């Protein structure tokens, strides 16, 4: 007898979390642009505030449009639920602020988005939360960095910008042996390319601004909880397993079991820090998710063509894409990312900064800006932008050189992208061959 079947990823991407509007029959997700919700009576109001009934009270805490996005992403990731936030950075902050107190410690990959590195390496230290950064390719380094006060292990599924593949099964094992959860930033892979919970991660988040939204029109983040980490058994998280005076003396784990983390993150974190997502933003990101399963294969297909072109170009020293046989994580990527390694990658050009500058300024199809995961192809020079605040030493640890260029491959015709890159590389090559300042320029013609 065949067992029952779950709806496929493609179907969930279009339907999960949304029941057509009962009043007007609207098929699309309505944008509930409301701050608040009318109570049926005083008893109903009291029961909503005291979490005796399900529903919405105030849109900083929850909103029907945002809830559709949350449930849909949770469905695609296989989590118990999700919380949408104002940005990916707000998502990371909300996880940290929910699980850690002053005096506690994080072990994180050193191959992170610059903003995440800033938050953990500088800003959270002001609030007494310290982070030790480790090389994600040295898996045992995570174990060596653990301290008695460590409360979180963190990395990116694909490190930024070197595309280090996080060995989630191995790192999660180390975290779990220490009674700690593993959080991953899954922005570059999306649930289409990788399901981190199936590999052992406990919590994940996305900058939904990127591939989930896919159109570069909205800033947002989403946290998803697997519900698999046993906070009570760990014994290291009184935030979730002891009565909390800040919320009716609630013991979140006792109250809700698998939903403990999300309950506190929503009821305390969104309530007090307030980094919620607007319903219009949720609607825009939902439009993107409805085609995620169509866009991601095309992103990957285009990226592979561009990688092949760059890898063969004489101006290119190396292409950092895990599907390249020479990439340090090639075998790991084959195992963890069989559908592809995404569409964001870096390459090192000959000629250093001058060549890089000419290259970027010559591109016509690629847009020079600070974002990735757009339907349009994007380019940036990390050392002078996203990773600008990192020291040379930290840059080196993160695999960023002066000539490193990061590309985010979009959905245009791949041949147009290759033509654009080829033209820019030729211009960069000419820049490296041009006379130095002060030398006499050759006459034209």
């Amino acid at each position, binding site marked *: *007898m065949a067992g029952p079947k779950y709806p496929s990823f493609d179907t969930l991407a279009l339907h999960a979390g949304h029941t057509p509007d009962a009043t007007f029959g609207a098929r699309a997700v309505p944008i509930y642009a409301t701050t608040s919700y009318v109570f049926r009576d005083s008893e109903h109001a009291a029961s909503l505030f005291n979490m*005796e009934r*399900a529903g919405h009270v105030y849109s900083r805490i929850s909103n029907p449009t945002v*809830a559709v996005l949350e449930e849909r992403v*949770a469905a695609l990731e296989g989590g118990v639920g999700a919380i949408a936030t104002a940005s990916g950075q707000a998502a990371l902050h909300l996880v940290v602020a929910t699980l850690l107190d002053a005096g506690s410690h994080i072990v994180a990959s050193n191959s992170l988005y610059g903003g995440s590195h800033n938050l953990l390496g500088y800003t959270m230290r002001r609030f007494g939360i310290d982070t030790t950064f480790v090389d994600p390719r040295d898996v045992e380094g995570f174990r060596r960095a653990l301290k008695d006060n460590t409360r979180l292990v963190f990395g990116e599924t694909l490190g930024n910008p070197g595309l280090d593949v996080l060995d989630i099964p191995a790192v999660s094992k180390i975290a779990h042996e220490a009674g700690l959860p593993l959080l991953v930033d899954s922005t570059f892979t999306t649930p289409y390319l990788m399901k981190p919970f199936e590999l052992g991660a406990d919590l994940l988040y996305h900058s939904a601004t990127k591939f989930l939204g896919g159109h570069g029109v909205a800033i947002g983040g989403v946290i998803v909880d697997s519900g698999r980490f046993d906070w009570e058994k760990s014994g290291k998280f009184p935030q979730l397993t002891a009565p909390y005076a800040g919320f009716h*003396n609630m013991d979140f784990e006792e109250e*809700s079991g*698998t939903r403990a983390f999300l309950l506190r993150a929503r009821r305390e974190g969104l309530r007090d820090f307030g980094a919620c997502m607007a319903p219009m933003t949720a609607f825009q990101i939902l439009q993107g998710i409805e085609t995620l399963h169509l866009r991601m294969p095309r992103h990957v297909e285009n990226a592979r063509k561009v990688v092949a072109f760059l890898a063969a170009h004489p101006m290119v020293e190396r292409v950092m894409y895990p599907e390249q046989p020479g990439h340090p994580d090639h075998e790991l990527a084959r195992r963890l990312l069989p559908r592809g390694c995404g569409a964001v990658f870096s390459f090192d050009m000959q000629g250093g900064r001058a060549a890089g500058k000419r290259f970027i300024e010559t591109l016509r199809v690629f847009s020079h800006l600070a974002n990735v995961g757009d339907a349009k192809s994007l380019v940036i020079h990390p050392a002078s932008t996203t990773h600008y605040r990192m020291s040379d030493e930290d840059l080196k640890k993160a695999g960023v050189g002066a000539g490193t260029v990061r590309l985010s491959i979009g959905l245009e015709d791949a041949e147009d992208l290759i033509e654009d890159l080829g033209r820019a590389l030729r211009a960069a090559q000419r820049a490296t061959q041009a006379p130095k300042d002060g030398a006499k320029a050759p006459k034209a013609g």
Partner: protein
Amino acid sequence: MDFTVDGKRAFAYTAAHALDPAKRTALFVHGAGLDHSWWGLQSRWFGYHGWNVLAVDLPGHGRSGGPPIATVEAMADWVMRLLDAAGLGRAAVVGHSMGSLVAVECAARHAARVERIALLGAAYPMKVGDAFLEAAKKNETTAFDMSTIWGHAPQVPLGGNPNPGMWMYGDNLARLARLAPGVLHNDLLACHQYAGGEAGAAKTACPVLFILGNRDQMTAPRVAAGFAKAFKSAQTVLLPPSGHSMMAEAPDATLDALAAFLNQE
């Protein structure tokens, strides 16, 4: 709140309230492979509306020590020993799925201590398919999949959740993933082998309420209707949009039905 039953830790959620023998008590019994938190919204409501609440974790589930209990009858006796440990005399027993069979046995075997029973997602006989039992016996994840998919209405994965931001399938799977090996099989086998439904119904003298999901794929309402006829009298509330997990699928309607029934003197 922790108790000691048979020398082992026994946990019951009390909605953060001290127990008061002068108050009426609502005792909630979860279904196969689940725990007290499955009753989250409903049990909390009763705790804040003048009731003692005991939402139990059966042995081997949630925070209660194992091993799991093999028969429905023994589960009912254990529940009554927990009531003893809590220093409480009588209770209204609310059971879901396997817990509904436990509630029937509580009423039949301990009539003086049970003032009424509410049976959610109930059916008798509660036969479990061979494939489901076999998968659970082998601790295969397909057993979790069967529990999850059949445990909710068909439209659940393609629709919204009354609890903002939650994914019901994922929640169910995560709960089952926390179980010790063999516990789900123990529970399913207990349901499958339970043969006391008709006799238990005949012995039940207290008021009985069935709360059924109209789209229940696990315990179909037509099977429950036959079971209801075995009681001297039983009310039935049918929740049109809900499947087997009505506490999550239709939380307000479930609470309203429970409150109306339990608040009858």
